[in-house]
């Protein structure tokens, strides 16, 4: 497992808290572990909950029909980088 930056760790904590992943801790989520499918197994409801939390915490609006966002949802590392990029662009 690759180690996470502070921003990545905070995002992992947000995911665990928002999605009530009671049997997973932020430390257990790898920075490059897939969020959907066979990794963490998140679904579209999780994506929506997560988008709400991200817009509240960082003021960033996610779009699903936009290729860059779809790629951003790959894992913690890509999502964290996307949020920082969008937040600084705003």
């Amino acid at each position, binding site marked *: 497992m690759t180690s996470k930056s502070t921003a990545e760790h905070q995002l992992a904590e947000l995911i665990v808290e928002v999605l009530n992943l009671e049997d997973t801790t932020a430390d257990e989520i790898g920075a490059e572990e897939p969020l959907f499918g066979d990794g963490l197994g998140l679904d579209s409801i999780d994506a929506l909950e997560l988008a709400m939390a991200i817009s509240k915490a960082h003021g960033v609006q996610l779009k699903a*029909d936009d290729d860059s966002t779809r790629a951003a949802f790959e894992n913690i590392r890509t999502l964290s980088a996307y949020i920082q990029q969008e937040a600084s662009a705003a």
Partner: protein
Amino acid sequence: MSRPRAIALLERTHDEVFARYGGRDISVDTFLAHVTALSARLPPESHIFNLLRDRYEFTVAFAAIVAAGKCNVLPSSPRPAALARLAEQLPAAAAIHDGHKPFSGMTALAFPRLASAGRSDGIPEIDEHQVAALTFTSGSSGTAMPVRKRLRTLRGAAAIYEDALLPKGSSIIATVPAQHMYGLELGSLQAFWSPVRFSAGKPLFPADVHAELAGMSGDRVLVTTPLHLRALLESGLSFPDLSRVLCATAPLDRALAQRAEAVLKAPILDVYGCSEAGCLATRHAARTDEWTPLPGFEFFDEPPGHVVRKEPTGIPRTLVNASHLDEAVPLGDRLMLSQSGQFHLAGRLGDMINVAGKRGSLGEITHLIMEVPGVEDAAALLPESASDTQRPAALYVGNADAEFIRRRLREVLDPVFIPRPILRVDALPRTATSKLPREALLDCFARHLKRP
């Protein structure tokens, strides 16, 4: 059943706008040409899994399948193993998809590119009793139960919805999938028999909903769920004008409805229904808890001695009937009927659960966990929680690993029903008669959750 009668698959004028697809308006004529072109390419099987996510492409395929005398199969979960299980129950099945192939061994047609114009066979006449679609509802027996949708039922529902839900001229934008009964009827099929248009997209995030609304002109009606509605409000975005919002799949709470009306400046109509009978009743959730049946639907409690399906709790079931349905449908909710014909909802019956608008059964989840090798006993439960997207959890006994169980469930179960968490225990709190009282189960769950 009355004598077979042919009805028109579409009752629309040729140059009217039917849908918005790929950034342009699609006329009824163009739609019919697309249906004709696709009909020629359909696989020979009698049942076709319609897995298309784009609402317009879905609708083209839906019409082509019906026109060819075949039946649409609309699974609630497109997971390959779930499809394979459903296919076993059908005589001969193939699939039409948009890139996500169903499973190996099944004939699959990728949705073709649509030509901008072409020849059309005109509006097909179809036997009104033809089963146009199979949808699925979660039974407590542990298997998904097919619900047959005859063309006359779908058409009868559209006539009711035109008066009560989707006025003529509506421009429909839906956030729910077309494979779900609510999304099928209001987001797509309404345009077969009523002068409305729908948008092809299925927006998820608030910014997507905004873009989809902005792309539609006219009297915009948003067809959505409480979860999507809450996301819209929390986004802080300002949305294009709406003439109304229809919200279904789970009851909308009054505070959310009031906030939504203030922000969206449109009436929010809460819709109650079920996959067996469609949309059944509405309420103006910002003002009242009481539901008013849509015209044509009759609700009645099961008369004593004529019990259709007995609940373990002994609570009488409420049934609903209407002239466009084949038979009275028992409802999965407890209804408190009043003399005026209106009603209150008083919770789900039996082991039915609702996760963010998707309905499932704890019995089905338990059954699937029990099938995993290394599991000796199991129980799915719904923990008490303040969250409105409460997920099921599960306890099990055996030497199987929780991660292994999770992986197995993912193959067959809609992701929202995968228990969170799945905890191993030494024994379930069964009584001498092997029953599992809900209180004891919740207690056992809470004790194990706290353990580090």
